[in-house]
């Protein structure tokens, strides 16, 4: 069956793919570099990625129906096209594997401390392999069905943390000026992760011209929500404390209390957040699947197994939480960001030139 994804589903995919487990370390990431004003850079960081959504779409629309990897082969020839696909494949597998490892951390650092790592890995991997096996349309529907509760869980987290928040922690605004904020902007590459995913998503979108509007909606919602999470964390834990916590979201969830009856609601939040991490990891496994397919046109089932095994192997590489965060940061900044920005710029330019040369 031919798979299709609607404009609305693209918005939800933008939300789901960007969110993942980003809300856990984001407060630390921004507070570390921009201090108490870190919350101000989230919306600009997302907006800075938006032109690249346009460039990806521009390149795609020159030859609709094929994904950007295949388009790259057409534009750059096989000598450059295949290495680009291989690089894309490696990046997807590595990032997907790291996200799987981070998903296991979601439990092993909070409510399932005693559970052996391999049990968590096998469970998550089985779920992810099923998602990839069922195809991108089912993934879009799955994402659509669970992303709203995930977003609501974050909204509730913010709302329930308000009594403990002290807004004075954010003052004085812009004490260090705008310089730290501008300098930190490239360090928040989450919008580019979505641009990266768009490379393989575009051929499945029923009306590609709706991508801009749908993506913008997604970017806007997610950046506002993440700004809310960061402000809450900074206000509840102080900016200094926030830089020391790897996963500040956990601590926030642990501190939530509703009256005296409901306390320790962390497991409920974890159930929702686990869904978010599954979505993000699945998205990158799909990238891996399609890039594998671009290089080795194997059977669907076999490709899914290969993607599952390689991503599991990648999940075993980091030895500690610090390693995971470090590796994710490396893949984000040195692979995803350049591919989704410089790579697409190059393709767009070549595509434009070739298009103009056509009689």
């Amino acid at each position, binding site marked *: 069956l031919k798979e*299709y994804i*609607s404009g609305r589903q693209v918005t939800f995919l933008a939300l789901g793919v960007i969110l993942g487990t980003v809300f856990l370390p984001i407060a630390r990431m921004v507070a570390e570099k921009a201090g108490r004003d870190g919350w101000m850079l989230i919306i600009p960081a997302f907006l800075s990625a938006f032109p690249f959504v346009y460039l990806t779409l521009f390149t795609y629309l020159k030859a609709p129906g094929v994904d950007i990897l295949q388009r790259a082969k057409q534009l750059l020839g096989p000598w450059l096209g295949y290495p680009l696909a291989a690089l894309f494949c490696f990046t997807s597998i590595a990032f997907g594997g790291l996200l799987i490892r981070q998903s296991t951390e979601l439990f092993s650092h909070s409510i399932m401390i005693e559970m052996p790592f391999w049990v968590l890995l096998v469970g998550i991997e089985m779920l992810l392999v099923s998602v990839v096996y069922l195809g991108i349309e089912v993934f879009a529907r799955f994402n659509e*069905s669970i992303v709203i509760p995930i977003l609501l869980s974050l909204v509730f987290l913010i709302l329930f943390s308000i009594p403990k928040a002290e807004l004075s922690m954010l003052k004085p605004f812009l004490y260090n000026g705008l310089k730290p904020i501008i300098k930190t902007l490239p360090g928040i590459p989450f919008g580019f992760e979505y641009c990266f995913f768009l490379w393989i998503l575009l051929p499945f979108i029923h009306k590609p011209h709706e991508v801009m509007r749908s993506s913008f909606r997604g970017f806007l919602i997610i950046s506002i929500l993440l700004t809310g999470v960061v402000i809450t964390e900074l206000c509840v834990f102080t900016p200094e404390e926030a830089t020391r916590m790897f996963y500040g979201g956990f601590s926030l969830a642990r501190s939530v209390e509703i009256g005296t009856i409901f306390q320790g609601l962390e497991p409920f939040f974890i159930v929702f957040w686990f869904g978010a991490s599954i979505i993000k990891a699945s998205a990158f496994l799909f990238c891996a699947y399609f890039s594998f397919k671009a290089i080795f046109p194997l059977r669907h089932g076999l490709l899914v197994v290969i993607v599952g095994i390689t991503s599991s192997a990648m999940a075993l590489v980091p030895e500690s939480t610090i390693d995971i965060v470090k590796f994710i940061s490396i893949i984000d900044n040195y692979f995803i960001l350049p591919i989704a920005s410089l790579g697409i710029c190059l393709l767009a330019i070549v595509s434009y030139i070739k298009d103009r040369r056509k009689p």
Partner: protein
Amino acid sequence: MLKRFARMVKALTLRRKGAPIRPAPKTTLTTTTLKGPCTYSSVKAILSKSFDIIFRDFTIEGKQPVKGHLICVDGMVDKELVNNFVLKTLMVQGNHPVLSKVTPGNAFEMVFSHLITNNEVKKEDLLSNAIDAILSGDSVLFIEDQPGAIIVGARGWGNRGVSEPEAESVVRGPREGFTETLRINTSQLRRKIKSPDFVMKPLKIGEVTRTDVVMAYIKGIANDKIVKEVENRLQAIKINGILESGYIEELIEDVPYSPFPQVFHTERPDSAAADLLEGKIAILTDGTPFVLTVPSLFVQFFQASEDYYERPFTAVLVRFIRQFGVVIALLLPAVYIAVTTFHQDMIPTALVLSIAEGRQGVPVPALVEAFSMEITLEILREAGLRLPRPIGQAIGIVGALVIGDAAVKASLVSPIMVIVVSLTAIASFTTPAFSMGITIRLLRFPLMLLSGMFGFFGLSIGIYALFLHLCSLRSFGIPYFYPAAPGNLFDLLKDTLVRAPWWAQRATPRIFTNPDPEYSSSGSLKALEEEPS
């Protein structure tokens, strides 16, 4: 050995398209294998082995005497109708102006056009069709030395009267239900939908049983592609017999190994008519009061016909209760097991102490305790269902009160577990569709197992796997989890989570009717168009 086992597993698990199910031996005479011209002698040779077939030979006293033969099945034919309007007119009306013109040469035509006063008569040349008609309850008339037969529609057998369906009873709404007789069922639908666009297509399914099946839909509302797909799937069924609509349900659904029912069935004509008005297709089977409607959505199984007869606010409240009931029925035991086994810190201290006190002396872990209680409950429920009603009720009371109380006193189970299991059992009854209720009961067990072994991690995996499975299902090309995924907020608010007032439900749900892929959000109808199965 291993190869044989693998072959056996493959045969039991893989559905092969077009493969016949329990095919009749080639030597068996079935109406599909019978070929040749329709004559009295050939029909008699085939049917004379059965004692319930009536062969009535008579003479038409026309201008010249003409021999005639009538064949019918005892008990399936309306004898009064045959005697008064067929035999009487042909045999005893002396000096009848038409009868006096009958000769062996024109007898067939005269009988057909002038003498039989029944409103349902048909000429038949094929042997198979004539035998089919006899075995379906019609009377078949032969004229000596004349080719062909006259089929007289005279079906009439004892049937249960129209009564209220027990499994779908309502406080407000019609009290009539479908019966086992197909003709009564079609008439009930026709009485509700008097439009000329309401089409009923007859089919015969089952090589040996030749069960009458009717496919009903409203032309112009139902999507033509879905209608075609349903017809194709029905015609592709190759089985020796259909005894209930459940056979058809299993053979036409998209994913037979899913725990979720993908074909809705109802005993209520108003419910079937409502589905038809939404653009769905009804499949009526002779011999059962259960009418299938397709395509079906997950949400449909949580809607009752009464929701549409009561005021919207009442329906909204009832729907919320049902949705809450589903969550409780599916998740409560699993959450209880996970919380008491792995995540005690979630529970307030006072409650922890109370649970601990209750569990004091219970020799088994919470998982085993919950499993044993749930299985006991299922046994009681099954026993109560199979026994005569008064005894069944007594079994329920004895089971719930006496055994439950004794088990708590003997410290075999904790009091809080009894509360959890009872709440779960009560909540599972809030689902209006029995088939979905069973599914929820069934799914509770793997979720309990997952949460007992892996706590909230296992439960999360189970819940997300369920969601993923629901998102992957389709019913005749329509996404099963619509309007949640693909999402449609308008439909979600119109008639899913809540029930909007009738004046707000201006359009027919577009997912069933409009072929534009954008309406189905993920282009499922487009997909159906491209690759019909």
